[in-house]
């Protein structure tokens, strides 16, 4: 082994997971973790939750403290990014001018933000929420704004709307689809979340398109919808999604399809280049087609798989995907992926404080979405992992013990 070791591009949850696991597994070579932002790697989920609400400071947001990287001999390169990779020479070039050799390269580049491209989108007071700098900007805007418009009814838009409403702002959320969480949750869950927001005073404009962001002296003063309606606001938060960051992978000809394609060991189409987290697309044994996930769980678990592969360990990546979102005091947890499901049954009462939705595709359980029912969520993960499908009538019966559907 040369001194080049493993170089990891991206210091989000996937990148840190790879580095940490390699050291836990006693990887003997050098480990270098490169991040574009200043400072130590930090956690992303609290950006739209505890950090945005001001409950956590920067120190608490960190993934690991400085001592951890020192003690584990993980070299951090911050405020820098890779501008080119030479796969045959096993070298890469940094923006700062330095050149780094590598034995194995890990792409953990995450996602690129989808930017809104309409007139006025660059006005002051128009904010996104993907990194700490943007969260800081949003926090500062929140202090002076009275009215906010949120564009996008996915997790970021909804968690942002919750934080804004709790901070006392008048919030209107505009969503292109007629349902919230259109790509990621069933209707009973989406409707429950909507009602919870409405209770907090959030106003929804669903099935509406944005035409223009209105500004004066380059300072936002509202938005105009395609139907002509004008919503006045001092703050506009945009959460219209992300795309896998495949730029570097494509630049060196790795196979990509809306994500860097990796096999079940996390290896790309180049044997010495691996990838993990939001930037990837891979075949999942539970779902039978190439899937792309944007989640902490996948970033961390796929990172572990990549570390295991780098250590020469056998095995494939088959972790059950799961997601969570905190809005107000409500916990939404999703186990599995509800794509292509043809049957939903509700366990509990969808108008009560807690319930779960069991989603089936051809009578096979593929996902369970839970509101304030963490124990059902945990059991659902075990059921999915075991490939067990309780009959829909049993799942819908709160008296039925879900544990009994697990293989003994």
């Amino acid at each position, binding site marked *: 082994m040369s001194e080049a070791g493993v170089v990891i591009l991206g210091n989000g949850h996937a990148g840190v997971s790879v580095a940490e696991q390699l050291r836990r597994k006693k990887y003997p070579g050098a480990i270098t973790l490169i991040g574009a932002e200043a400072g130590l790697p930090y956690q992303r989920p*609290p950006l739209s939750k505890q950090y945005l609400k001001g409950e956590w400071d920067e120190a*608490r947001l960190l993934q690991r*403290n400085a001592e951890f990287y020192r003690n584990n001999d993980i070299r951090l390169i911050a405020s820098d990014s890779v501008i080119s990779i030479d796969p045959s020479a096993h070298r890469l070039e940094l923006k700062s001018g330095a050149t780094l050799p590598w034995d194995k390269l890990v792409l953990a580049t995450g996602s690129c933000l989808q930017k809104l491209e309409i007139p006025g989108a660059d006005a002051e007071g128009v904010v996104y929420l993907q990194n700490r700098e943007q969260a800081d900007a949003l926090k500062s805007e929140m202090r002076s704004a009275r009215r906010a418009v949120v564009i996008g009814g996915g997790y970021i838009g909804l968690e942002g709307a919750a934080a804004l409403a709790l901070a006392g702002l008048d919030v209107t959320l505009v969503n292109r689809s007629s349902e919230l969480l259109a790509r990621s949750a069933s209707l009973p869950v989406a409707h429950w979340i909507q009602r919870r927001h409405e209770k907090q005073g959030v106003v929804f404009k669903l099935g509406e398109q944005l035409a223009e962001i209105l500004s004066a002296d380059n300072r936002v003063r509202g938005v105009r919808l395609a139907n002509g309606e004008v919503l006045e606001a001092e703050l506009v938060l945009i959460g219209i999604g992300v795309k896998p960051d495949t730029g570097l992978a494509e630049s060196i000809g790795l196979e990509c399809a809306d994500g860097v394609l990796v096999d079940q060991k996390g290896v790309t189409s180049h044997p010495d280049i691996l990838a993990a987290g939001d930037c990837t697309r891979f075949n999942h044994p539970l779902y039978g087609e190439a899937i792309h996930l944007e989640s902490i769980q996948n970033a961390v678990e796929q990172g572990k798989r990549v570390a295991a592969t780098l250590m020469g360990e056998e095995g494939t990546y088959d972790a059950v995907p799961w997601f969570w979102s905190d809005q107000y005091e409500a916990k939404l947890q999703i186990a599995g992926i509800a794509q292509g499901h043809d049957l939903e049954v509700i366990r509990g009462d969808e108008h009560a404080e807690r319930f779960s939705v069991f989603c089936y595709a051809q009578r096979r359980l593929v996902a369970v979405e839970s509101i304030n029912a*963490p*124990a059902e*969520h945990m059991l659902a993960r075990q059921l999915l992992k075991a490939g067990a499908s309780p009959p829909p009538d049993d799942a819908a019966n709160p008296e039925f013990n879900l544990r009994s559907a697990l293989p003994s």
Partner: protein
Amino acid sequence: MVNLIFVEPSGAEREVAAPEGWSLMEAAFQNGVDGIEAECGGSCTCATCHVYIDEKFIDRLEPMGSNEDEMLDCAAAERRDNSRLSCQIEIKVEFEGMVIQTPDTQI
């Protein structure tokens, strides 16, 4: 800062100094203590930060809520009388010197 001692699954002891107000899980996680997964980042939704608390200190902890109780039943390792989810325990000065054992498995 409050000094805590985490005992990792290997038996190794890790001394960690953590700020008051953080959770035990955060103290362990930021220092990379082995045996704490904390998959959900501390929202009491995954039971992968399960720990065994020093019997001498157990009375100094706030009693557990119903969510934590429910989640502990889903923990991967054996639930004992001194089992807690470390994300639900806010560090206080009275914890100085507390010993926290991490279980063999969290998943």
